[in-house]
């Protein structure tokens, strides 16, 4: 059976990447990055700037000038917290955060290995529908509490897990 990475690989962007980026952004309802006038307002409020040196306006500059391969393979886009401040505050209605989501998706599609705990999150969703299973938590006296012990009902889960997994695998091989 094909692994998920092979499936992702089938949806990797080919040809003119810049055109493809503009198309995919439009599907999400986001405007063409060429309208960015490099005011750096996004960077001034960026939650990942001080600690992880992310500069969303520089990402936008690279994207505008066609350095898409460089950006998509750079570690820096994985520093984005996803706080949406850049999108909220941009005077040109740009969305650096969405540009980076797409570039990270492309990196994964081109066979890049998933950083950090992403592999676990993905595995969790594909096997049970959730990123994590309910655990027994400890209170301050080290006493363990499960959902059951607390009188919480069982949580819902995908009833047709095969159909659920098959939908996700199909989408992995498709373009946005």
């Amino acid at each position, binding site marked *: 059976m094909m692994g998920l990475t092979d499936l992702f690989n089938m949806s990797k962007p080919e040809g003119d990447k810049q055109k493809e980026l503009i198309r995919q952004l439009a*599907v*999400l*309802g986001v405007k063409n990055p060429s309208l960015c006038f490099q005011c750096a307002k996004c960077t001034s409020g960026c*939650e*990942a700037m001080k*600690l*992880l040196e992310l500069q969303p306006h520089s990402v936008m500059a690279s994207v505008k000038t066609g350095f898409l391969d460089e950006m998509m393979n750079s570690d820096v886009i*994985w*520093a984005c*917290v*996803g*706080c*949406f*401040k850049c*999108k*909220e505050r941009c005077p040109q209605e740009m969305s650096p955060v969405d540009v*980076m*989501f797409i570039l*990270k*998706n492309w990196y*994964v599609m081109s066979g890049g290995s*998933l*950083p*950090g*705990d*992403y592999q676990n*999150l*993905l595995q*969790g*969703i594909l096997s049970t*529908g*959730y*990123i*994590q*299973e*309910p*655990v027994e*938590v400890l*209170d*301050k006296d080290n006493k363990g*509490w499960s*959902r059951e012990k*607390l009188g*919480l*009902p069982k*949580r*819902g*889960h*995908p*009833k*047709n897990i095969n*159909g*659920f997994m098959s*939908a*996700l695998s*199909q*989408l*992995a091989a*498709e373009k*946005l």
Partner: protein
Amino acid sequence: MIRKLGFYPGCVMSAEQYAYEMSIREVLPDLGVELVDLENTSCCGAPLRSVNLLMQMYLSARNIAVCEEKGLDMFVPCALGHLSLVETKNRLNNSKELREKIVKKLKENEGLEYRGDLEIYHTVDLLHDVIGVERIKEKVSNPVKWKIACHYGCHTIRYTEAGRPDAAEHPSKMEEIIKAIGGETWNYSEKLNCCGAPLMVTHKEAALTKTGEKLKAVKDRGFDALAIVCPYGGRLLDGKQEKAGSTIGEKLDVPVFYLTQLVGLAVGRNPDRLGLNLNLSPVDRLI
């Protein structure tokens, strides 16, 4: 008036942040909201945005469809989940191409019918707009008289275009609720700062630094406690406070409560049923 809502718990609350879920289940029925559990739910997809946006939107859309099957509007107490579901609903309304792709997959693989015309509430707008501050105030028997800082979390308020429970730059609904239940609160410069939680996947140290800085600000500004409305935030702000403190070289001891726990205390619900024994931050100091 009884308002019936489909209750969508999401991953983190239902897997470990039980205090939030317990206080929600204990408090809302008393305020006229009946919660209906949904059986066919899954992750909302938000944690997968960076991996695959189509998967993210499929996951959000399927949970909407699961709730629509019951003919109910929806309650999503997780800020990340709420944004992901609302955003997906908008995107499927705005792009025919996207809608057809997702709707077809839902039907063919899981037999789910997606319409996307339900209301989706988060804790903040449910308490403030649907139940109403006056109604909460009327029920208060045991005012919580502490100085409480509000933390909305990034996804509760951004981004405006998606339609959020409160204003992006000057949110005030949590503060109104805190005042209605007897607390004191004010704006502080770090109010809109991120708690760092999404960074735990790839940059743990940076995540904990952000958590630590946020809590230190709350402490330095003279608050007794912090109120939160997102289980992702709770996992760090309450659950990893000690670690966040040692990461930034500070001793942190800020009591962190879910807003629904505070409302529950104020309206006189049994503290044992509000999950207060599960908060790992020093909440006992106040109650």
